[in-house]
């Protein structure tokens, strides 16, 4: 197992949810497996960075000059956060968040009472806004959308989450992008395109990620630099790709999905197929997002829908919303409806008519 990070795999989901809030110190992020596991399972961990792949000869080239040959390999390099391209973006208090090291850098300087400017309104951006606010910082979000998460959650839930942030003191500035970060060796302010100057002690960019596939230029890549795989996560002979870097068929449509649990679903399929099985992705994508002590669950993956129906009010959880297309549930979003969502996580593997979904939900709520 070749890893460019120094420590063994750890739970990345807590970085934006609980590390930046000050609840979990960076050094206490739980490892996915302890050292005994790797030893007992004979997993050889190699610290290094892959810089090139030759799929014809099944060879990996590492940055330090080593080469490794494989009988079967899975590419799971994840994604790289997009960096700001602004004057001043190289100041030391301008951050992205992907790794324990990033979180450590942020928490080294973040102190209650400081002013944080979050650039972007992605899930990472708003989870960080919530966490830093809970840590006692003054937080302003420079958002691209008047309502966050509309493409995933629809307007009603997006509005409710923005309202939750505002009730907790997060300020939103809509559609006035940053033009420059100023400061003499240290962040002092963010200048917006309308001339506004926001004083700042730290800046955090949550403006999306790109597949970390620079080392795989020898493979045919999609426009977004991801790797196209088949339903069994296969790339070519003896080679599989999973997680953020993989464009895979979901219900027949090519999709790239950046969820933690989905990458693990991919991994289990790829591992089985590396051992000779013929498993395909037939599961339901799921992610959760945490804002001011509220957990929002999302099941499915709806690019579009022709109906959205709610039980309960998104502003006043508990609620559950179903997204329908042609009478079938294509996605569900909920807060404090965990049993119903657990049931749907399994039941949505088969086509589920909206009416039947509501019957099931009412029976367990």
């Amino acid at each position, binding site marked *: 197992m070749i890893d460019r990070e120094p420590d063994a795999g750890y*739970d990345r989901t*807590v970085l934006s*949810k*609980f590390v930046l809030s000050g*609840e*979990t110190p960076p050094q*206490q*992020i*739980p490892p*996915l*497996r302890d050292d005994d596991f790797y030893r007992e399972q004979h997993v050889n961990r190699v610290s290094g960075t892959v810089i090139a792949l030759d799929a014809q000869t099944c060879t990996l080239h590492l940055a330090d000059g080593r080469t490794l040959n494989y009988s079967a390999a899975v590419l799971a390099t994840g994604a790289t956060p997009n960096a700001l391209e602004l004057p001043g973006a190289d100041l030391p208090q301008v951050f992205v968040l992907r790794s324990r090291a990033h979180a450590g850098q942020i928490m080294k300087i973040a102190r209650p009472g400081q002013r944080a400017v979050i650039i972007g309104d992605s899930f990472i951006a708003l989870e960080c806004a919530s966490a830093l606010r809970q840590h006692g910082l003054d937080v302003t979000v420079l958002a691209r959308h008047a309502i966050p998460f509309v493409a995933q959650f629809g307007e009603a839930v997006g509005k409710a989450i923005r309202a939750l942030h505002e009730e907790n003191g997060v300020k939103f500035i809509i559609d006035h992008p940053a033009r420059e970060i100023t400061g003499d060796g240290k962040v002092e302010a963010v200048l917006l395109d309308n001339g506004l100057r926001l004083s700042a002690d730290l800046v955090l960019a949550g403006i999306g990620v790109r597949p970390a596939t620079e080392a795989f230029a020898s493979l045919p890549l999609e426009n977004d630099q991801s790797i196209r795989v088949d339903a069994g996560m296969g790339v070519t002979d003896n080679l599989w790709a999973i997680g953020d870097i993989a464009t895979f068929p979901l219900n027949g449509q090519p999709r790239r999905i950046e969820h*933690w*649990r989905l990458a*693990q*679903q991919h*991994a*289990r399929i790829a591992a089985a197929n590396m051992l000779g099985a013929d498993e395909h992705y037939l*599961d339901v994508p*799921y992610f*959760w997002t*945490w804002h001011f*002590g509220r*957990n929002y*669950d999302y*099941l499915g993956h709806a690019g579009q829908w022709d109906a959205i129906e709610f039980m309960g009010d998104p502003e006043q959880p508990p609620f559950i919303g179903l997204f329908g297309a042609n009478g079938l549930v294509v996605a569900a979003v909920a807060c404090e409806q*965990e*049993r*119903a*969502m*657990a*049931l749907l*996580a*399994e*039941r949505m593997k088969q086509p589920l008519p909206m009416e039947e979904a509501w019957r099931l939900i009412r*029976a*367990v709520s």
Partner: protein
Amino acid sequence: MSLHRVARFADVAQDRGLEVQIGDCKIVLLRVAGQLRAFQGECPHAGAPLAEGALCHGRLICPWHKAAFRAEDGALCEPPALDASSGIRWNCVVMKSGLMINHCRIPMSLGGTISEALSLSVPALQERRVPPLCGRKALADRS
């Protein structure tokens, strides 16, 4: 070997688990095809109470992050859990008056139906994994 009366069979619903506790050990009881199974009550991923999840298509689904386990034997079906839900080394005894549960390390055969009032057990898997205290679990424990 002391017996603890923990529940009546009728208390264990068809569509969800039932949490019972002996000392500080939480156990989730499930109905599987007319039989009972007992597993660790907290999800091996982040410590969620599994009895607050759902039982569907023979799988127990975690309420928090939707890990899924096979109700028959606790095998892992869906992440983000990385491990099976340990079958607790408990020997469930169903009696007319209720379900007795007893810490027992004697391997017992699987099977039997409730109407026959047989002793049931689950395969002894690994030791109960204690989830890392982090995030939500830590918050829940603090409150």
